[in-house]
């Protein structure tokens, strides 16, 4: 079973993504900000990380750099309400860029693609 870390500061969204992805058959862990996420990445291995950008303390772009420093091979999906970060070169390091939407189909398909494509 794939383990996914969702880094998201919005509790409601955390609940939503957890429920949706678990229903897809993944094991989901949550982190409320970049710092927590990095600690978790240090301690445990994940098959995939879904990273929000706008977060308190440490934002997603900064976290992405640090995560890749530690676990360079883990696929990361940047998941944000801001489509503009797509043009920021730091975001290119991520494996995918998904603009948040109430319709999670795109996110799910990207997750599936990254995990199963890797397999």
């Amino acid at each position, binding site marked *: 079973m794939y383990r996914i870390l969702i880094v998201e500061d919005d509790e409601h969204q955390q609940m939503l993504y957890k429920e949706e992805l678990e229903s897809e058959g993944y094991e989901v862990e949550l982190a409320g900000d970049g710092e927590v996420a990095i600690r978790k990445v240090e301690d445990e291995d994940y098959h995939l990380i879904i990273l929000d950008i706008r977060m308190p303390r440490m934002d997603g772009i900064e976290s992405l750099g640090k995560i890749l420093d530690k676990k360079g091979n883990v696929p990361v999906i940047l998941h944000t*309400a801001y489509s503009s970060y797509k043009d920021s070169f730091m975001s290119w390091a991520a494996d995918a860029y998904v603009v948040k939407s109430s319709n999670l189909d795109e996110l799910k398909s990207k997750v599936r693609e990254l995990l199963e494509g890797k397999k």
Partner: protein
Amino acid sequence: MKKRYLLLILALLPVVTLLGISMYYIVRGPALGRFSISWTIFLAGIITCILIASFVLIKELLIPVREIREYLKGKTRYQSYSVLRIFEDLTEEIERLRREDLERKEEFKEFTYLRGLSESIIYNFPNYLIIMDSEKNILFINRNVIDWLGREVKDIVGHTFEEVLPQEILGEGSLRSLWEKVSRGGATRTTVDISLYILGRLDKVYNIYLSPIRIEERTLFLLMINDITLSRKRELQIYDFRSVSEFIRGVSRTDFERLLFAIMTGITSGDGAGFNRAFLLLAEDERGEFRGRFGLGPRSREEAYTIWGDIASQHKDMTELLHNYDRVEDKESLLLSDYAQRIAVPYSRDQDIVMQTVREKKCFVVNDARTDDRVAQEFNDVYQANSFISVPIVVRDKVYGIILADNIYTNEPIDMDRVQLINIFGLLCGLVIENSQAFQELGQRMEELKKAYSDLKEAHDDLSEKEKFAAMGRMAAVVSHEIRNPLVTIGGFARLIKRKCSGLGPVEQNAEIIIEEVERLESILANIMDYTKPLSPVLRNENLNEILHETVRMFRRAVKVKKIKLKEEFGRKIPEVALDRRQIKQVFINILKNAIESVEEEGTVTISTYCRDDHLFVEFRDDGVGIDQYTKENMFNPFFTTKEGGVGLGLSICKRIIDSHKGEIEVVSGPSQGSTFKIKLPIDQKGGSGDVQDSDS
């Protein structure tokens, strides 16, 4: 002096008496015996007297001798009562008499002179001077009267003034009534002006002065008639000149023709300069000649008499004549345009009077055009006046035109007086034209400034409009992101609910509503965010027809439902153009969507592409409802929408995209005539804002 002699006599008397007594005793001899003492004293007295007389005489004689001597030496002048003095006195007396005589003669001469002078003055008095008795009989006249009446003295003096003077002066309300007034003893001195007209033109003005004079109990009458024609004409000329000037002041400075008409009226009005006709010739550099522009005056002698007669009988003054311009419908005819335009003098005719006027910038009079070398035959044939004046109109030191004026019908001579006046009108004309030109230049300058101001204002409005939209955009971006996050949660959970409650009827349906509404909101937000996001097209060489075709396919279903005909009229030789496929496609989608929405069922939308002048053109033509003016002006502004629930960003995004491709987008439309969106893209995109990448990269 006499006192001195008296004292001398008194002093000598006793001495001489004693001497006589002693002589008596000495000579008392027999020879003298018969002499008594009294005789002796008497004798002594006589001798004394003789002595004194001799002494005095000698002394008196000696004084002048001394004086003469001294006089001759230059030491003194006569002082004493001497012979010379007497002589001198006599001389003085004679001199005085002579002087008096001379003075008298002088006085007499002066008297004679004065008499002669006064007689001469009266005789040669410029006015007509007549002295009459109370029976109207003429007693005295001066020479002017003789010249004036053209009769001999004997035919005038002794007759009554009524027999002698011309009828026009005697007429009702003039001399006769004046005489009645004065001779009845009512008035002392009376004066009246009589104006005489010929054909409506002021001919003569007389000032008549009648006054009783009393000489030795006899009452005579002094009649003085003064010809004031010249000064009255001057007054009228000044009045006319002022009328013209005032009229000009009231005329718009760009109403050239009216201004020149006023000046020409001044030149031809009967009372003013009083020329029969006047013509204005303007320099036409392109044709190299002076050509008549217009003229003023009667066309023939008959017309002259009719017109001038009318003017006189209706007592039209200058102001009325000036306003004639507005009353007359046929300006061409009034201004003799047809005739004037036939008058021409080419620049090359160097010796011509007109060219001479131009060269020397002063006026010239031609007295006999037929014999004058300076007047060409062909000019004479057209102009016909034998005597005329040519006056330059100088504007900024250049001869702008020429005024020609003549007395073709009355044959009056062109005197200095008129020359001066027409010269002034020439100057006025120059000033008016200069003023008018300056005014026009000013007007042009003002127009330029106005335009510059309106451009500036437009730019300013445009800028503030852009700033407004930019601020709105920034705000919209912030708000959109803040809304997007909760929407994700709402919509996401709604989907979850829908999935988990599948088959639960109303719950599933309600969840579906939430999902749809959230989707709608998200699509609005996506639009807003797209708009606020900076555009940097990634350019690749693309086939425009292909993109269009793809776009059309996307609408296949909508077209089918609405039974719309979608025509593709793509040009065959459309070259590949560097563009951002995704962005351009969005433009096509937006426009095509609008077009399909605007047409009725079974309407037609035509998409055509063609190539012209280094540009590619894409046209979306529909036969829909069309676009009104207000919408047309604002449709490319962000947040402007006519659709209910629309955000108003579709077309403004299109415009931004086309702008970033250095292209143009415009719309041709009117209500109920359909609309055509025209997109123009440059074929050479090397100067584009993005990097061109090969399409196969």
